[in-house]
C-alpha cells in the first residue's frame, strides 16, 4: 500500500457513500413533489399525509447527501492536487456552476419548504418543493458534465507551454455525447431508487394492514414511475454500452472479459479466467449477442483486451492499459442483473395492482421491502464499473491516475483522513438507516390541513 492506493480507496469510499444518499434524495423529492401537487389539486387530506410522511424520510436522507457532498467539493484539492492543477481550467467550471446554479437553489428552497408550511401560500409552498426537485436534477447534470469529461474529454486542448488542459469550447462540455447518455441513466436510476424505497416501505405497511389508503396510493404512484424508470435505465444503459464500445473499447472488453478481438462476439454470462495470462478458462456465452448489442450487427467486430493493450502501447508507450478485469466484469453483471430484477418487480407489482390483488398478494408484500437494497447495489456497481473500467486513466487517454495525486500529501496523512472519513461515514450511515427504518415504520402524521402541522421542526 502506498499513498496513491490509499488516495484511490479514499475517493472510492467517500464518493460511493455520497452516492448512497444522493439517488434516494433525487427520487424521493420527486415523489414528495408529485404527492404535494396531488394534494394541492384535489385537497384530499390523504395526499397531504403522504406528502408529510415521505417528505420527512426525504429530509433525513437529504441531510446526509448535503454533508457528504461538502467533502466532494474539496477532496480533489486534498488528495489529487496534480489532477486539480492539470484539469482545473476545464473541470473546475462545471463544479463551480453546480454550486452557484443548483446547490444554492436546493439548499435555500429546502429551508423554505421545511419551515414554510404556514408562512407561504399553498401555491408558493408547492413551488418550493418543485424548485428543490429541479435543483437536484441540475446538480446531477453539472456533476455528470464534469465526470463525462473525465470519461470522454472534449472541448479542451493541452497547452504545451504550461502542460495543462485548457478549455476552449464550453458548449462542447455541455453537449458531450457521454453526458447525454450518463445524465438520463443517472436520473432514471435515482427515480428507481426512490421508487423501490416507496414500494418497499408501502408493502411493509400494507402487509400489516396499516393505513391502507395512504400506502396503496403511494405504492401505485411508485410502481408506475418505477416501471417506466427501470425500462428507461436499461435503454439508456444500452446506449451507454454502444458509446463505450466506441469511446472506451478497453472498458467494454474488460466488462465482457473479451481477451481477443472477435467478429460475432458472444455475450458472456459467466467466466472464470486467468487475468495474468489474458485468457478465460471457462466462459458461458450467448452467441453473437455482444456484437449485436454493441454494434447493432450479427457479425460486428468487438475489440479484445490483448489487442487493445498492444494498440495502446504503440499509442501511449509501455505500461499496462488493462483495468481490473474481474472487478469490471462482475460489477457489470451485478448491475445488469439487479436492474433486470427491478423491471420484473415493477411489472409484477403493477400487474397485481391493476388486478386489485396487491394487498392480498402476501408473498409480494413480504419480498418487496428487500427490493429497497437492489438500487443501492445497482448504483454502486454501476459507478465502480464506470470508474474502475476507466483505469489506468483519470482523464481517458490524457492523464494517468498515478500522475494525479498530491505530492505534498504522504502516506500518513492519507491514512489519517481515510480512517477518519470511513469512521464518520460509517457512524452516520448506521444512524441514517436507524432513523429511516424507525420513521418508515411509523404511522403517517394525522393532519387535515397544513396549518395543523408544525412550523418549527428542529
Amino acid at each position, binding site marked *: 500500500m502506498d499513498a496513491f492506493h490509499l488516495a484511490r480507496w479514499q475517493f472510492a469510499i467517500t464518493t460511493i457513500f455520497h452516492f448512497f444518499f444522493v439517488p434516494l434524495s433525487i427520487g424521493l423529492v420527486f415523489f414528495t413533489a408529485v404527492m404535494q401537487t396531488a394534494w394541492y389539486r384535489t385537497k384530499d387530506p390523504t395526499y397531504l399525509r403522504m406528502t408529510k410522511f415521505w417528505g420527512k424520510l426525504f429530509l433525513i436522507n437529504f*441531510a446526509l447527501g448535503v454533508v457528504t457532498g461538502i467533502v466532494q467539493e474539496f477532496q480533489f484539492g486534498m488528495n489529487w492536487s496534480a489532477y486539480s492543477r492539470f484539469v482545473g481550467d476545464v473541470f473546475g467550471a462545471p463544479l463551480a456552476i453546480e454550486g452557484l446554479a443548483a446547490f444554492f437553489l436546493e439548499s435555500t428552497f429546502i429551508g423554505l419548504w421545511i419551515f414554510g408550511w404556514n408562512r407561504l401560500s399553498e401555491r408558493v409552498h408547492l413551488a418550493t418543493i418543485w424548485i428543490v426537485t429541479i435543483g437536484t436534477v441540475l446538480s446531477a447534470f453539472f456533476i455528470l458534465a464534469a465526470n463525462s469529461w473525465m470519461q470522454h474529454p472534449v472541448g479542451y486542448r493541452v497547452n504545451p507551454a504550461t502542460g495543462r488542459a485548457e*478549455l476552449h469550447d*464550453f458548449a462542447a462540455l455541455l453537449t458531450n455525447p457521454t453526458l447525454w447518455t450518463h445524465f438520463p441513466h443517472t436520473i432514471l436510476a435515482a427515480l428507481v431508487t426512490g421508487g423501490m424505497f416507496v414500494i418497499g416501505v408501502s408493502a411493509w405497511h400494507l402487509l400489516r394492514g396499516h393505513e391502507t389508503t395512504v400506502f396503496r396510493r403511494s405504492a401505485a404512484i411508485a410502481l408506475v414511475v418505477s416501471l417506466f424508470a427501470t425500462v428507461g435505465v436499461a435503454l439508456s444503459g444500452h446506449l451507454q454500452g454502444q458509446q463505450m464500445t466506441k469511446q472506451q473499447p478497453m472498458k467494454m472488453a474488460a466488462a465482457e472479459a473479451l481477451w481477443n478481438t472477435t467478429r460475432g462476439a458472444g455475450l458472456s454470462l459467466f467466466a472464470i479466467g486467468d487475468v495474468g495470462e489474458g485468457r478465460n478458462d471457462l466462459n458461458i456465452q450467448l452467441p453473437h449477442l455482444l456484437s449485436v448489442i454493441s454494434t447493432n450487427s450479427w457479425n460486428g467486430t468487438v475489440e479484445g483486451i490483448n489487442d487493445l493493450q498492444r494498440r495502446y502501447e504503440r499509442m501511449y508507450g509501455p505500461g499496462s492499459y488493462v483495468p481490473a478485469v474481474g472487478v469490471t466484469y462482475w460489477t457489470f453483471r451485478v448491475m445488469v442483473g439487479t436492474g433486470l430484477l427491478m423491471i420484473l418487480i415493477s411489472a409484477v407489482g403493477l400487474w397485481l395492482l391493476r388486478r386489485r390483488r396487491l394487498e392480498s398478494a402476501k408473498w409480494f408484500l413480504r419480498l418487496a421491502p428487500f427490493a429497497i437494497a437492489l438500487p443501492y447495489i445497482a448504483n454502486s456497481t454501476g459507478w465502480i464499473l464506470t470508474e474502475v473500467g476507466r483505469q489506468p486513466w483519470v482523464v481517458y487517454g490524457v492523464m494517468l491516475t498515478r500522475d494525479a495525486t498530491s505530492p505534498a500529501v504522504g502516506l500518513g496523512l492519507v491514512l489519517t483522513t481515510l480512517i477518519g472519513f470511513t469512521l464518520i461515514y460509517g457512524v452516520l450511515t448506521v444512524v441514517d438507516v436507524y432513523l429511516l427504518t424507525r420513521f418508515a415504520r411509523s404511522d403517517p402524521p394525522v393532519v387535515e390541513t397544513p396549518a395543523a402541522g408544525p412550523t418549527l421542526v*428542529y
Partner: protein
Amino acid sequence: MREGYLNLETLWFALIAVLWIGYFFLEGFDFGVGVLLPFLGRDDVDRRILVNTIGPVWDGNEVWLIVAGGATFAAFPEWYATLFSGFYLALFLILAALIFRGVAFEFRGKGRHPEWKRWWDRAIFWGSAVPALLWGLAFANILRGVPIDANKEWAGSFLDLLDPYALLGGATSFLLFALHGGVFLTLKTDGEMRDRARRAAELLAWPATAAVLGFLTWTFFNARENGGTAPGVVRGVVPVVALIAVAAVAWLLRMKLDGWAFLATGLAIVGVTATIFLHLYPRVMVSSLGGANDLTIWNASSTHYTLKVMTIVALIFAPLVLAYQGWTYWVFRKRIGRKDIEEQPNTV
C-alpha cells in the same frame, strides 16, 4: 508584469473574496449560535429556540463555502490545489466538524432519549467552534506565508500552521463569530432568551474588540514589509472601519439598538476579511520560502476563456441567488419565543 485592476484575474480575486466575506458574514452567525448553544440553552425548549433561529437558513449559508471552493477551483486551480493539499489536516477537521454539525440540526429532534439530544448538541457546539477557530487560523496563514516550494507545492506540516499570528487570527474569528451569533439572537428571540443573548454579546464584545485590534495591528506591521499592491487608501480605511464597528457593539447593545449592533458585527467581519484579501492582492498565497514562490492571481489562474465563461455564469446566477436568499430571510423574519416551541413538540 501586468498593471491596473481592470482585468479578469482581479475580478475573480474580488469575487472569491466576496464569496468568503459572504460566507463568514452568514455562517458566522450560525457558527455563533452553535457556540452559544450550551451557554444560553438551559433546557430543551431553550435549545430548540436557538436551533430554530438558524433552522431555515444554515444550509443555504453553507453553500457560500461550497461555491467559494468551486470558484477557486475554476478560476485559480493552482490556488485550490496548493491550499487544500497543504492545509490538509486543518481542512479535514473543518469538514468533519461541518458534517457532524449539519446532520445534528436535522437529527437532534428525531430521537426520544435525552442522551440522543445531548450528543447532537455536543456535535452542534464542536461542529461550530472548530471551524470558527480554524477559518481564522487558515486565512491568517495564507497571508502570513507558509512553506510553498518553487513547484507551487506545500513543503511544510500541520504544525507550521500553529504560529502565534495565525492563532490570534483563529481567536479573532472565533470571538467575532460568537459575538455575531449572540447579536443575531437578540434579533431573532424574545423574552428572557433575548436578554440572555444580549448579556452574552455584551460579555463577548470587549474580548472580540481586543482580538480584532491585536490582529489588525499585527497585520498592519507585517504589511509594512510585505503588503501587496492594493490601493493604500483602501488598505488603510477598511481595517479602521472594522475596528470602529466592533468597538461600537458594546455601546449599541447597551442602547438596545440590536439591529445596529448586528450591522456592526457584520461590518467587522466584512472588514477583517476584506483586510486580509486587500493585503494579499495580487497574491493568493504567500510563500515563506521567498517571494518568487508566491502564488499570485497571474501564476495561479485559469485561462481568459474559462474566466470569461465563469463571469457570464456569475452575472446570470449571482443576482438570482442574492434575491432568493434575501427573500428567505424576509419570510423567516419573525422572532421565536418559548411559546412557539411549547406549542409544537418535536415532530417525532
